[in-house]
Every structure is written in C-alpha cells, then in structure tokens.
C-alpha cells in the first residue's frame, strides 16, 4: 500500500522535515532544529503539530444517537454540554481498549478524533454497533492541526479572532478565509492549546500564517516526549486490547453515573475491576541517574522478581532526565516504591512516581 501524504507535506518539506512512515502516512518526525529544541519551544512558546493522519469521525444524529453512543462509551453524553469534549475509549466486551479518543458534542451530532492506526477499524466497529442507523463520515477532506504551548492562544487568536475565549475541553465553529473551521481547546502535550479541523485546501495557508506569527512546526518526535512528560498514553504502547481503562489508571475518564447503570460495552469487567481491584496497573517510573528504559524493558522488585514492563520510555527534555511509564503488579504500584529496570543486561534502580512528570496548569474552565 502506498503511503499517504497529508496536505501539509509540501510545507513540511519546505521546513526541512525528516519523514517517517507512521500508520500508513509520511509524517515529519522532526525538523532541522531537532526534537529537544522543538520540545522546549513548545513548552516555552508555541508549536504546531500536523495530526491530519488522525481520524475525524462525524456522526450525525440527535437523542437516539446519544442513547446509542452511551451503550458504547462510558460517558454521560446526555448531560455533556454542546461543544464540550471528553476523553474516552472504544472498548470490547472484556473492556480491552480498541482505541482512545476525544469525543465532542456538536449541534449536528458528535465529532470523534481517533488514532490514525485505529481509525478504519474503529469506523467498522462503530458502524456495526450503531447498526448503520446514522450518517457517519470519516472525513478525509479535512486536515487537523494542533497548536500547543503558552503563546498559542495569542497567536491563534490573532489569526482567528475569538478562540482565546474557549474554555479547556470545549470547542466551536469559527471562520478562516470564509471556511468553517472547528476549533477545540485541547491537545496532548500538557500545554494549553487548540486543535483545529479545517478543509485540506486551506490548512497550508493557515499553518503558514501561524508560523508567521511566531509559532513553529513540531514533529512527531517531540510530540512523543511532550505527551510522555505530561503522563499521557500512546495507543499501541501504553494502551491496547490486553489492557482495560481501570488497569490503565484512567478510571477518572469513566462516568460514575454510567458505572451505576452498568449498561455499556465492557461495563461488567469495569465494575468488577473497580470493586475487586486489578492485578496490574499503569504507573509513572522515574529512573535514577540518566539511563533510559524504553518500551518492553523488564521491571523487577527488590527481591529480583519480575513485576512488570515499561510501555513508554524516553528522555524528557523539560524534566532533563529519563521518564517512563509501564505496568506493574498492583502491590508494587505505590508511589516511591523502589524497582529495578533491566537495560542491556544490567539492573538499574528506579522508583514508582505519580504522573505527570511535568505539570503546567491549563486554562480555567475545566469541565
């Protein structure tokens, strides 16, 4: 299968991007300044991410759609306000995670942002669950960019007036060059920022204007170090079908109201795990010293017993040290528990820590 290119491909080339294939797309891993500089620029100024490879699924419908989606997602969608967003997951009947996603209630129905590698399968699963009752569009005509970092609000507001008044995890329609753009105040870096859905033909112009105002394109490499410092999961690594939201320590994203009803796919397992506890759980892991423990690194307890595995690990440029997360047996998940990480045949000390590694406050209005 030929790899796809996003509508910003030419701009990436103009900015000297190094490309990698990711989920069937040619995506920029970094630009000339490199991952560390790009990471810091996002934390201190503003960075633009091309996330057009991600799925933008529009589902059209009203009250019936809300009821049907509540059978799928563990969310209180009925009481979700118009233009507000929630983080959630698509689960199987055993509560294994097919994908993690952001769902937003719009006037017309719902907009769901899906991972690139999962979007086609998600579409199939959702279409089947919804029994083809609703119009569903996995829109390939729209691009998606994220602008993240402390200067982003000012920069984006200069180009699209009014966005600075959006609250965190809410969105609205705006216009750019007479085109309707849907903007949410959200992101995946631990910074204040926005995600902008815009028709393919205008994304290049919008991005160039944002660059002219002082933002910069940032590659997937820095996106990964930013999200990991922020303690956020990457599907296919920290989340997959063998892990449940409770094991992934994401129970905050499950509506209590919906748990009490227990009528969504996977709810039996979720309720059982919430009541009885889980045998493994996702934790933050901070290696002592500079050693980097990457995905699949084995975790041992102080008695040299294998108790888990790293699912993401890298060097955190803002933390200025290695950061990781992984799954350990529940009894070793307490903060400050000392563990050992086996890297290149040697065991290196580390400790369980709370997430995120890097914290900055979002804008007010967290729903």
């Amino acid at each position, binding site marked *: 299968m030929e790899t796809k290119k996003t509508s910003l491909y030419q701009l990436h080339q103009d900015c000297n991007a190094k490309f990698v294939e990711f989920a069937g797309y040619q995506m920029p891993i970094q630009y000339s300044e*490199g*991952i560390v500089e790009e990471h810091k620029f996002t934390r201190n100024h503003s960075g633009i991410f091309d996330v057009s490879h991600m799925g933008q699924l529009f589902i059209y419908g009203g009250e019936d759609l809300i009821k049907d989606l509540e059978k799928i997602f563990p969310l209180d969608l009925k009481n979700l306000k118009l233009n507000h967003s929630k983080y959630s997951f698509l689960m199987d009947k055993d509560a294994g995670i097919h994908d993690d996603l952001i769902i937003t209630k719009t006037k017309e129905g719902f907009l769901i942002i899906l991972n690139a590698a999962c979007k086609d399968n998600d579409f199939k699963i959702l279409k089947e669950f919804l029994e083809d009752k609703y119009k569903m569009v996995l829109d390939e005509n729209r691009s998606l960019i994220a602008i993240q970092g402390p200067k982003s609000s000012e920069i984006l507001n200069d180009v699209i007036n009014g966005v600075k008044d959006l609250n965190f995890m809410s969105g609205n329609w705006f216009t750019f060059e007479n085109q309707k753009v849907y903007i949410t105040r959200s992101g995946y870096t631990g910074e204040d920022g926005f995600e902008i859905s815009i028709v393919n033909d205008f994304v290049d112009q919008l991005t160039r204007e944002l660059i002219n105002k002082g933002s910069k394109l940032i590659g997937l*490499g820095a996106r990964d170090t930013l999200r990991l410092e922020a303690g956020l999961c990457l599907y296919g690594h920290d989340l997959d079908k063998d892990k449940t939201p409770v094991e992934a320590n994401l129970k905050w994203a499950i509506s209590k109201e919906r748990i009490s009803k227990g009528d969504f796919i996977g709810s039996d397992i979720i309720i059982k795990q919430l009541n009885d506890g889980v045998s493994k759980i996702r934790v933050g892991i901070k290696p002592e010293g*500079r050693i980097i423990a990457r995905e699949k690194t084995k975790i041992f307890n102080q008695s040299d017993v294998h108790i888990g595995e790293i699912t993401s690990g*890298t060097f955190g*440029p803002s933390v200025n040290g290695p950061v990781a997360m992984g799954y350990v047996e529940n009894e070793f998940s307490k903060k400050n528990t000392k563990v050992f990480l086996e890297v290149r045949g040697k065991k290196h000390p580390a400790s369980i820590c709370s997430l995120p590694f890097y914290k900055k406050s979002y804008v007010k209005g967290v729903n």
Partner: protein
Amino acid sequence: MSEVKYSKEHEWIKLDGDVATIGITKHATEMLGDIVFAELPEKGSSVEKDGTAGVVESTKAASDVYTPVSGEVVDTNQAIVDDPSKINQDPEDSAWFFKLKIKDPSEMDTLMNKDDYDKFAKETSA
C-alpha cells in the same frame, strides 16, 4: 600524530604514539539527532576490534558504539556522560569517547581516510 581514520560504523580514530582517541563522526550525530545519553567502556577493560564499546541514545533510540581497533581502555570522557549534548556540539574533537592503548597498529590500515569516509557516508545515507 597520524591522520584521522574512520570506520564503517561511523567512528573516528586518531592515533598518537600507541594511544588512540575514538569518537563518533559528525555524520553519525546528524543521523542520530539529539543525543541524551552516553555510556562508555570501563577504564582498564579490553575491547576487541568491531566490538561494542559504549552506547549513545537519542530521544528516539539507542545505538551501540563500536571500537574500530582492539586495545585497553586507558581513559574515558566523563564530560560527555554528564552532558551528552556536547556530542552533538563538537563530535570530532572535545566530545571524544574513549582512549585505547592499541594492541595491533596494523588494524589502522583497515580503516578509511577522510575522503573515502565522506563518500561512504554520503552513499549510505542516500
């Protein structure tokens, strides 16, 4: 002091008497990206030609560092362990990795000169 020689694994080596200074090339650092971790061989240990003698890691991945010749490690550069970004800044001079008392000077003859290495680097990265 002899001319600097290069290996196919992108190390450079400079011989001064029977002590060789070894590091990784600028081309290698450009391929790796930002280096955020370096591990060096232990002083006093012996390393064999083409064997691993250290590790560098970028934010993305870990890569082995090989030694282009055999010998005993007589010195290591702690400065690059403490601040691995020095490797990106000055790879072919102050950010050397380790020094070897070499075992067999003829091993130097198997390595490339600068022109050949530059050509090799260009071809292999194309």
